């Protein structure tokens, strides 16, 4: 993973003193509420319903074991003993004191971490595939490019005061686990016909109030041009994006107003001046960055472990976990393990201090000291020897991190919603819990098969409800919490393009959500043909049979 050099360390330390002095000036009345709001947002600090919320940057979802231990320490000493894995691969703390935030940042800086640009109208933490660098289906490791973008976008002189927040995601795999089509900029990195690294650039995707799938504006962009081309896009957006209405300020609205072709023309004109400029990446820049992500020296392992087979036979629960939560690794004998946080009774993505410490220990014991956070709000251990999966599983079980539900209906993506978030229309955590309660039977969930269920507490769509196979959106109906359900959404990847869900009909009260979900699943079970997934079935039969089952009539 990327290791800080003296330059990075100095920058982050200066960021801590900078932010500390801003906090002090605010507390002394030298900065207005409005000024400090903008400054603290650029450092990840929101003021929420009950307390401030601090969002710590986990660059492209990668952590070292030492970093995760420090997060556990922060959860214990500055918070109430837990943290929350966000849908953008970051970690959030829900109960810090505003005056203590500079101390938290200082603790983070000790392990080369920060909260820079995790909120506010600026370029946010770049996200990527949680399996980057180890995935069996990967074309190119996207992490060096994530880090180059992180450095380039950090406190950028021109692009820190944009019309609205700006999210960039990169994938380097056939299966787009980073959902690049629903980001302001989505990048697909691959090797082109001549064997060189190149990018396809999508713009204008996004969820929120106006969900849109991004459109490709440039194919086969050579890696050296990555930053200058991004500069051209950012400049066009910064100058022409709407600032009069925050609901129309995202780049997707600008792209729609100009059309993708019109937008491309303006970007290309801008780029014609920037191409070859000083932000062009030299072969040495790329090589230096790639070296940070060089593959570890994997000890050679037996391809298949008979021990693993025996254990699977004698422990059906373990076997199911292997089937569901373990993904193929590019190296023979290794596996990628997803540690599910989605256990009934715990808000999706919440992890305790002791769980964090346990995960950090496993990363050292079973891997190379590295942990990932997925946008599905789970932890990932990227390098586990297959022969030791059983040992790890037992420990994960004991720490409530081994629910065998990755990719199943109870692996719910869920935003903090009305329990914490001041923007919410409705709660989302209790809805997730009610659904998990109802579907406790893992056999049933396995029978249903792969199913993404995503919940957002408002239109801002932090829970990605538009791209859930089943999406649930909290709405406010005359002061009460209602839920609008959509079907058939899909974040893209494999052979299918990203698709936004269709609303199934009028919204329902919270108490009715589980029964509506049950009707949706029954419709699927009655209509599916052999081996058909929920999404496949929906795409074949359409929304009508579901409507009929839920509302009685079409």
């Amino acid at each position, binding site marked *: 993973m990327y290791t*800080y050099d003296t330059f990075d360390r100095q920058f982050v330390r*200066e960021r801590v003193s*900078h932010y500390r002095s801003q906090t002090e000036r605010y507390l002394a009345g030298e900065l207005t509420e409005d*000024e400090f709001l903008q400054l603290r947002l650029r450092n990840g600090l929101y003021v929420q319903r009950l307390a401030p919320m601090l969002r710590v940057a986990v660059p492209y979802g990668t952590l070292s074991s030492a970093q995760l231990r420090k997060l556990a320490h922060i959860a214990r000493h500055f918070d109430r003993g837990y943290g929350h894995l966000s849908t953008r691969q970051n970690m959030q703390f829900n109960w810090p004191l505003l005056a203590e935030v500079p101390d938290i940042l200082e603790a983070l800086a000790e392990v080369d971490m920060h909260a820079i640009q995790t909120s506010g109208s600026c370029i946010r933490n770049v996200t990527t595939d949680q399996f980057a660098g180890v995935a069996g289906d990967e074309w190119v490791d996207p992490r060096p490019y994530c880090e180059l973008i992180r450095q380039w976008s950090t406190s950028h002189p021109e692009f820190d005061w944009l019309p609205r927040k700006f999210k960039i995601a990169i994938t380097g795999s056939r299966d787009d686990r980073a959902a690049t089509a629903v980001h302001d900029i989505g990048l697909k990195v691959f090797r082109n016909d001549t064997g060189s690294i190149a990018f396809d650039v999508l713009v204008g995707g996004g969820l929120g109030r106006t969900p849109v799938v991004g459109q490709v504006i440039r194919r086969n962009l050579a890696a050296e041009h990555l930053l200058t081309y991004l500069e051209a896009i950012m400049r066009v957006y910064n100058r022409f994006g709407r600032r009069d209405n925050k609901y129309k300020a995202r780049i997707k609205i600008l792209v729609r107003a100009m059309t993708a072709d019109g937008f491309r023309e303006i970007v290309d004109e801008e780029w014609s001046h920037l191409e070859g400029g000083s932000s062009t990446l030299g072969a040495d*820049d790329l090589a230096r960055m790639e070296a940070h992500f060089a593959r570890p020296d994997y000890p050679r392992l037996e391809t298949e472990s008979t021990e693993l087979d025996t254990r699977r036979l004698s422990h059906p629960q373990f076997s199911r976990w292997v089937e569901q939560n373990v993904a193929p690794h590019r190296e023979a004998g290794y596996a990628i393990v997803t540690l599910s946080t989605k256990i009934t009774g715990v808000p999706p993505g919440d992890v305790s201090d002791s769980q964090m410490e346990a995960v950090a220990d496993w990363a050292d014991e079973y891997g190379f000291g590295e942990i990932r956070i997925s946008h599905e709000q789970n932890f990932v251990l990227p390098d586990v020897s297959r022969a030791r999966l059983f040992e790890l599983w037992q420990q994960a079980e004991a720490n409530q991190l081994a629910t065998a539900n990755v990719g199943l209906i109870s692996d719910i993506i869920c935003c903090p919603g009305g329990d914490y978030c001041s923007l919410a229309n409705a709660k989302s955590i209790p809805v997730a819990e009610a659904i998990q309660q109802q579907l406790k039977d893992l056999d049933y969930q396995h029978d249903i098969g792969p199913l993404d269920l995503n919940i957002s507490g408002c239109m801002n769509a932090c829970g990605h409800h538009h791209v859930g196979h089943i999406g649930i959106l909290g709405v406010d109906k005359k002061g009460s919490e209602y839920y609008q359900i959509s079907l058939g959404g899909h974040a893209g990847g494999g052979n299918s393009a990203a698709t936004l869900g269709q609303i199934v009909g009028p919204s329902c009260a919270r108490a009715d959500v589980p029964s509506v979900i049950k009707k949706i699943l029954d419709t699927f079970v009655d209509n599916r043909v052999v081996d058909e997934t929920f999404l496949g079935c929906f795409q074949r039969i359409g929304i009508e049979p579901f409507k009929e089952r839920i509302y009685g009539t079409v």
Partner: protein
Amino acid sequence: MALSNRIQNGLRLTPLDEWMPESGDGLLLDVADEPEARFIRAPVIAIRFPAFTDGRGLSLAVLLRTRFGFEGELRAIGEVHPDIIHYMRRCGFDNFQLAEGKCLPPAGSKTDSILAPYSDYYQASVLQPEPASRRIRRVA
């Protein structure tokens, strides 16, 4: 760098629709104005920020400095708040007229932490045309 409310000795700032290159007047731009080559004949260009959160003036400044080669005084006016100045400087502004009611603490470490909070930055800028990775050996 100058921090002042100074109006250049007798120099007028004229809005774009009335400004003529040969007038010798300073040019007053709105953040939404489109930059043009003839602007570089102005002795001073002032860009008015309607809000301190409005980054359009930053891009406009970069274009004037880098695309059109403007070398005269570039002044930020309007909602110029002290904490934004470090961005403005890197975009090519060299004179700042603080918003009404805004002031800087007397010179000292506190002022430095506002105006120049970082000793260096990662990316290239108008002030520093080469990114850090090309200027210094980045070693762990």
